[in-house]
């Protein structure tokens, strides 16, 4: 079990690095739900010539999935993801997807926006949001699994 602590910590450092560089250089919050809705329904900032910056960040996320999964598994023995072990019924998958999208939109953020960037700025809003979704997430995981 302890062998998974080091990848988790190191992975967390990388996540934090990606997020803080985006703030340091571009002045932007690395909240994925906000970036996704910004990309899809560009939130009023029409300074864009060509694609909005949000699409580049999302492309980076996708690229990491395409390029890094194999090397990470080979080098560190981590399993980047395996949907097949979950065997989630399709209706449950769809309901959870809607809840995640709706919840992040109403609550103005998700694990990254509130949990990292918000807490990382000591925002009371984000601290409360993170405590709430962690607590409910624990309850839901106990009930559904």
């Amino acid at each position, binding site marked *: 079990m302890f062998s998974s602590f080091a990848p*988790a910590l190191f992975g967390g450092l990388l996540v934090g690095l990606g997020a803080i560089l985006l703030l340091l250089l571009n002045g932007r919050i690395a909240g994925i739900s906000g970036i996704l809705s910004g990309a899809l329904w560009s939130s009023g900032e029409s300074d864009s010539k060509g694609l909005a910056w949000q699409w580049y960040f999302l492309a980076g996320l996708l690229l990491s999935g395409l390029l890094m999964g194999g090397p990470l598994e080979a080098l560190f023995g981590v399993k980047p993801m395996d949907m097949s072990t979950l065997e989630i019924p399709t209706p449950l998958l769809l309901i959870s997807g809607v809840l995640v999208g709706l919840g992040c939109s109403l609550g103005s953020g998700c694990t990254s926006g509130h949990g990292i960037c*918000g807490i990382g700025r000591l925002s009371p809003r984000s601290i409360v949001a993170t405590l*709430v979704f962690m607590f409910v997430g624990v309850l839901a995981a106990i009930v559904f699994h």
Partner: protein
Amino acid sequence: MNKLMALLCGILFGTGLMLSGLADPDKVIHFLNLSLLLTGEWDPSLMFVMSGALAVYLPTYLLVVKPRVLDNQGPLLDKQYHLPAKRAIDAPLLIGSVLFGLGWGMVGICPGPGIVNLAYFEPDIFLFVFAMVLGAYVGRQIHRSIPIAVNNA
């Protein structure tokens, strides 16, 4: 240049998600499901993801970004910092967080890992992300029908 940086930050962020295990729904469930404490199968490692991320983000924000914001200096590649202005702990924040926690705990996928995992071309993840976008659209319409600003955090 700032678009190239956004791409690079996305790659770093996604790589971190995968390395940490947060992109693996199975692992997330084994973290959130505290009843596994009773059977000894609980996986606490994901606590270190947020710890690691905050260990980088928080001090850099306090020591570098915040003084620059107070000093009216912008980030290196933009004229100004785009930080959320909302302060109130209001009903949409709380209701949204409850709904998000519920969905996250049900299957163990949050938005970042959802998008990273699209790279694995499994039908399930496309369905999830499609549903997530649909939910986000509904939330956006609700936000617009009641007068609250949307683009935060």
